[in-house]
Each structure stands twice: as C-alpha cells, then as structure tokens.
C-alpha cells in the first residue's frame, strides 16, 4: 500500500479524535474520591487516560509535521528555480556596479591625461604634484 498525504491525514485525524474521546472520559471521571480504594482506581484510570492522550497527540502532531515536510519536498523543483533566478538577478545587479567602476576608471584616465597636457604646456611644482596625484588615483582604480 502506498502512503499518501490523504492516508497520513486520516491517520492524524484518527489519533486526534481518539485523544479527544479519552479527554472526555478523563473529565467524566469526576472529582477524585475520598475513599482510599476508590481513589486508587481513580488514579489508575486518570494516569492511563493521560498517557493515552499524550501518546495519541504526540503521534498526531508528528504525522502533521510529516505531511508538511512531504509537501515541501515536492516543492524543491520550484524552490530551485527561484534560487537560480535570484542568483542570476544578483549577478545582473553586480554588473551595474561594474559599469560604475568602468565610469570611475574612465574619469581617472581622463584626469591623468589632462594633468599630462597641463604639465607639458605649463610646467610647475603644483602641476607636477597634480600629475602625480592623478597617476596615483588612476593606478589605484585600475588595481581594484
């Protein structure tokens, strides 16, 4: 026999309903009698019913958890697709960061070129320092 989620569902319902029936019996026991012999019988029944309720509920909840896990297992192909699409989107977003980097590189190269022209046409200490700075900036950006 193949175990389906419907089978599991029925089994969990069965356990849960049986636990309810045991609870009704427990409440129907009424107050614990004062007589020692009657109290001993009461204690035994009380203990038996509580044990039954706990066991049945443990089983019912465990089956419920199994039903959830089974349903999620069937969703893994969908979840894998979602993961792949998400990863691809993250790569695309990173590409924009790469374009930003390219723009920064372009700006630094232009700055360096302008400094070289300025130094060639107007040589001075200030312009040589400016040339060194733009070279350092360009080298730093190209290294990244």
């Amino acid at each position, binding site marked *: 026999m193949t175990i389906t989620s419907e089978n599991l569902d029925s089994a969990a319902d069965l356990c849960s309903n049986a636990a309810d029936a045991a609870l009704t019996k427990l409440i129907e026991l009424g107050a614990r009698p004062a007589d020692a012999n009657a109290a001993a019988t009461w204690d035994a029944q009380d203990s038996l019913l509580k044990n039954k309720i706990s066991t049945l509920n443990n089983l019912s909840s465990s089956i419920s958890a*199994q039903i959830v896990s089974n349903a999620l297992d069937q969703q893994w192909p969908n979840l894998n697709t*979602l993961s792949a699409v998400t990863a691809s989107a993250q790569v*695309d977003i990173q590409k924009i960061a790469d374009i930003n980097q390219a723009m920064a590189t372009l700006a630094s190269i232009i700055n360096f070129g302008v400094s070289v022209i300025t130094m060639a046409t107007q040589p001075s200490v200030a312009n040589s320092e400016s040339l060194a700075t733009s070279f350092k900036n360009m080298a730093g950006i190209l290294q990244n």
Partner: protein
Amino acid sequence: MISWRIVSALSLILLNSACTNLQAVNTTSGQLVAAASSWNSVADEMEASCIRRNLVSDPASDCSNEKVATQHLEDANKILSAYFTALQQVSNGSNFTVDAKLTNLSKSVAAIPKLNSAQVQAVSGLGSFLANMATKAQEERTIKNLILAVPQAEDMMDVMNDVVVKELIRVYKDEATNTLATFNSYILQSGANIDLTKLDCKMGVSSKSFVNGTAYLLGQAYCAKNTALFTKISALNNYSNSLTTAKAALKSIESGKDDLTAQAIIQQLIAQATSLKTDIDAINKAF
C-alpha cells in the same frame, strides 16, 4: 556644433526615459521581504508547540518530525525571502544608476583644455547616454527574468497556505487537548468537580466558581495558557491572509510586467503592501 547639440539633446531624452519609476514595486517587494521574515516565526511553531506540549505530556515526544518540518519551512522561507529581496533591489532605482560616477566624469571632461561648455555637456551627456542605455536594458531584463519565476513562488505560497495552516491548526489542537487534560486532571485530583471546557477564559476566572484555592489557581493558570494559544490560532488567519495577499501582489507584478508604472498596477500594489503590513504586524505581535 550641430552634431554636439544633437548628441546632447538625444542623451537628455534617453536619460529621462531611463528613470523608470518602479517605486510601487519596490514598496510592495519590501513588504514581501518583511512578510517572509514573519512567516519564519510561524514555521518555528511546529517545533515550539511540540516543546510546549511536552511540558504537559507524559510520555513526552522527541519532536524530531516537528524539528525537520520547521527546518524545511525555514529553508523555503529563506529562498522566498531572497527572491523578494532581489525583486526589491531590482526595483530600486539607485541600484541601476550611474549618476554619482557620471558627476565625476563630467568634472574630468570639463578639465580637458580647449573644450567649451557645450562640448563638455555633450561629451558627458554621451557618457550618461551610453551608461543609462546599458543599465536600463539590464534593469528591464533582470526584472522580467525575476517575473518569470512568479508561478513557482505562487505554488510555494499555495502549499504554505493549504498545508501548513491546516497542520498547524491540528498541532495547536493537540497542544490544547494535552493542556486541558493535565489541568483538568489536577483540578479533579484536588477534589473539585469542575469541567474546564465550560470555563469562559475571556471573561476572566472568578474565584466563586471554584470550591478550593488549588482549583482556582489551576483554573487561572489554564486560562493563561489557553488564551496564549488562542492568540496564536487567531493569528494563523493573518498568516493565511498575508500569503494570499503576497500571491496577489506577485500576480499584479506579473500581469503588469509590460508597464509596471501603469496607474492601475501602482494602486493595486500599494493597496497590497498596506494589507500585507497589517497582517505582518499581527503575526509579529502573536508569535
């Protein structure tokens, strides 16, 4: 000179059209990220309820199946959350803009000797045109690729709504039965003949209803546990609503994929984001 002006004007037009306003998608996907985070606290309840039930159970459960179910649900939530985050990032204009770097480029171009202001504007305009063409195409492609996976996300949310809600209700019912059995047993042991199922915990526990102090205190403790559990069961409605709204929001995004800036889509998305926030707040309060 004319060619410089043409390039400059063309780039300005394209720059403006590139500024697609996806604010509504961004707001809604932000709420979807928050919703996925709140769904984790619901996922935790499979195991948490088992641990609470063990406090009033004999024999106790090892909660192994419940732990696995919680873990699987958290893994699924993590994937959904990453998907929603990508949707949020891709609809965030600042992730698809190069404006800050273009300012640097304009400054650099302006420093080139013998270029007049019109030429500087045209060169930097051309730069922005090229950069924005690239980023705009990238943005549209990325968002359309993400939208292609909407049916998979919807399937996943259907499972959470149909299966998780139903099974958690049963798990809570089991916890409630065990709690009632234990407290009722203690009350009967104290000599009082009281059926706790007939106690109206919402109205508060009156000492007059109990024949002895032990029974009264037990009744109070039972009601505290019962009320806390009832709050969680009620919040499952908010969990279910948030899944339904999240699915509807994805459907809005999917149906509007050709023009996500259309007024009708924006209104739908904003309404869905507001509804999601209400349910998320209720979930976070209950769990």
